[in-house]
């Protein structure tokens, strides 16, 4: 059973991570969590992103945003790099979320096939 006591033990390690973060993370991973996102399945995606980031110590912070006006493409995950450029991934599920962390955040490879541009091209066809 977990108890609040556990937190005392977790404190030290968490503190180290916070201090490291002050140096800045290279990526910001943003999940759309308005009703459009939540209804489309953003919660398990967020869950996965937090789990993987905790486990594999990815060089990113995971944050949330509201509705960005592309509701049909939800769940949406945006990855912002240090230089401000960003990639919009659409129809994200927990599996794609794992790959986005692995490839984009981990190795700097953009997963073109999951991006909004790819989705739009597929529709136009």
């Amino acid at each position: 059973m977990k108890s609040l006591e556990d937190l005392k033990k977790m404190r030290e390690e968490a503190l180290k991570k916070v201090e490291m973060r002050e140096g800045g993370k290279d990526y910001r991973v943003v999940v759309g969590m308005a009703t459009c996102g939540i209804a489309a399945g953003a919660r398990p995606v967020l869950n996965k992103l937090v789990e993987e980031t905790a486990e594999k110590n990815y060089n990113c912070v995971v944050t949330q945003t509201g509705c960005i006006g592309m509701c049909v493409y939800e769940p949406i995950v945006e990855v912002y790099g240090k230089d401000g450029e960003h990639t919009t991934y659409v129809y994200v599920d927990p599996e794609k979320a794992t790959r986005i962390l692995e490839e984009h955040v981990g190795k700097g490879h953009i997963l073109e096939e999951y991006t909004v541009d790819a989705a739009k091209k597929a529709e136009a066809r």
Partner: protein
Amino acid sequence: MMQDLAMHMLEIIMNSIAAGASLIRILFIDSKAKDEIQIELEDNGKGMSEEMVKRVTDPFTTGRTTRKVGLGVSFMKGLTEQCNGVFDVKSQLGVGTTVYVSLQRSHIDLPPLGNLGEMMMAAIQGNADINYQFTYKNDSNEFAFDTIEVRKELGDEVPLNEPQILLWIRDYINEGIQQAKEEQL
């Protein structure tokens, strides 16, 4: 659309976050005896005018500029209508908002409860500066979680949205609920 109760609740909690609340209280009562699920979501955010409260369940009411419909509240109201329930919003400008929901527990259309721990994790991840008080009750047991207690243990330097802390909170809440359910049997 919304697959479980926790998703509906998360949506209402997100409204409280958007309203600038510093304290959000979440009460979930699961009563077999009364054949009822009761949900209370209370915040001390900016509140709504009387006129706004009247309109809030209308899908064409939204503060959003990215689209013309606001769905969170109308989805929740729709659910109560579908499950022989009651929906009520009380709000006062500058004071806060409380959303009351009651649902018939045995109703055939009642969605599954869903993952309340994950719901709380998502809320805290959305804004870790807010204090959240979560209570789960059934006919014989109660489990309560309060971020103020967590902060006491962690100290001020560790934000609650540290991934490890978030996962701990999720699991702590789910364990607590599970235990409250088991003891009831």
